[in-house]
């Protein structure tokens, strides 16, 4: 379970997050939606202990992330698919992760297969990867420790339609096995296909939350989202 409880973050003058509260239950794939700059990445970095909240608390599996024993074995994270050393091969990235988590080296091979990177691709330096391949590698890295919660920042960026389809199947099966999945995105159409729940955020505030069906309301998520964000824009001005 992933829980945000009135999380706020202020940078000097700017209020990046304002009393953000929501919960991702086991078995749910929750899409965290908002335009660029809405505070999605900030929220996920606070959740994973990389940033500090100014007030409020965020917990994963009932505890602050940084207090979990070997968090990589309990929570899978992909915070930026682009943040990779360009000179390291994909296989090496997973091998390092497996070593650090105390998993057998074979886990890296299994994971490569799971995310659909071929032997040839995994032997190449990440610097030559497309964004889609980096996303697969990053999702694989997140899954190394067979986590019970998954936190993915913009995992759908750069994926082709087959990739989106693949990710939906993968995340759905993880959720069905009891995993709580939280993924952020600004791609509404893609998230509509992948997620079952949605939390919409704009200017650091939660604008709406509910199931995809509730928020889509026949018009699609995109329309709801545009309505909400334009209201938020007006009220912010």
């Amino acid at each position, binding site marked *: 379970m992933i829980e945000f409880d009135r999380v706020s973050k202020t940078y000097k003058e700017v209020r990046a997050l304002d009393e953000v509260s929501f919960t991702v239950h086991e078995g749910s794939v929750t899409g965290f939606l908002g335009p660029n700059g809405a505070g999605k990445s900030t929220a996920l*970095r606070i959740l994973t202990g990389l940033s500090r909240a100014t007030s409020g608390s965020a917990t994963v599996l009932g505890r602050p992330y940084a207090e979990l024993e070997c968090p990589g074995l309990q929570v899978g994270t992909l915070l930026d698919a682009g943040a990779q*050393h360009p000179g390291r091969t994909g296989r090496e990235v997973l091998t*390092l*992760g497996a070593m650090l988590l105390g998993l057998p080296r074979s886990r890296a091979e299994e994971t490569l297969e799971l995310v659909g990177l071929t032997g040839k691709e995994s032997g190449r330096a990440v610097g030559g990867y497309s964004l889609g391949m980096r996303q697969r590698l990053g999702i694989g890295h997140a899954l190394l420790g*067979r986590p019970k919660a998954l936190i993915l920042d913009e995992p759908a960026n750069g994926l082709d339609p*087959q990739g989106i389809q693949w990710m939906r*199947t993968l995340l759905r099966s*993880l959720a069905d096995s009891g995993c709580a999945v939280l993924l952020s995105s600004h791609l509404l159409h893609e998230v509509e296909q992948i997620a079952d729940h949605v939390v919409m955020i704009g200017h650091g505030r939660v604008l709406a939350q509910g199931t995809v069906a509730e928020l889509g309301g026949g018009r699609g998520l995109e329309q709801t989202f545009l309505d909400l964000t334009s209201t938020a824009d007006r009220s912010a001005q």
Partner: protein
Amino acid sequence: MSTAIPRQESAMSTAVRPIPFHRLLRVETRKLFDTRSGKVLTTILIVLSLAVVVVRGVVAGPQFELLSGTAGIVFGTLLPVLAILTMTGEWSHRTALTTFALEPRRVRVLAAKCVPPLVATVAACVLALLVAAPVTAAVAAVQGVRPVWTVELLPQLGSIAAMVLTTAMGLALGLLLLNAPAAIVIFLSSTMVWSFVKVMLGSTGETLAQWLDLATACRPLITGDMTGLDVARLAAATLVWVVIPLVVGALRVSRKDIS
């Protein structure tokens, strides 16, 4: 493309334990050599050291101690640069996100990063001795000259200690600045700046350098005749260039928002 359903083991069969330090150490050591730049730097380091020892042997004659010390000129520059790259790498490529997500106890990660360059420095000094020996013998045989094998223990140990301190300065600058180009420029230009200070300020500059320039403060260590005053000077220079930047840098990293 695989659409296979992943096999998720529902319950963890083994108890989850915090990551032990030796594992961090193994991973950080591996990270030194598993990238293209790491491999290139290591190769350059080895080839250049060998070449320098051989050339010096041919030019200066078969003097064991002189030859083993020659490799140090290469180490003294490249190992601190390696140390800087180790410390700053996570920020240059933003992999700090991944690293500190897997191990939120950031200071342990930083400590694990410090160890491999320091061990590599000692290993390189030992290797220099091992390489200098056959080169001395070979040059003596080829040139038909008697080789000089005299080695003084104290200066040898002193040079290794000085080399370790220089690498530690690289680590400290890297950790303080978290920016490879800036740290490398400051490290490489410090020799020039200090000689400038000595010329400009005369005896005052000389005194300043003795207390605050790590290279100058290390000199008595290398010649093997440290006095009590020299120890105090070396301690002061080490405090300024190693201890303070390491502590300030570690505190900053442990508190800052990683992005």
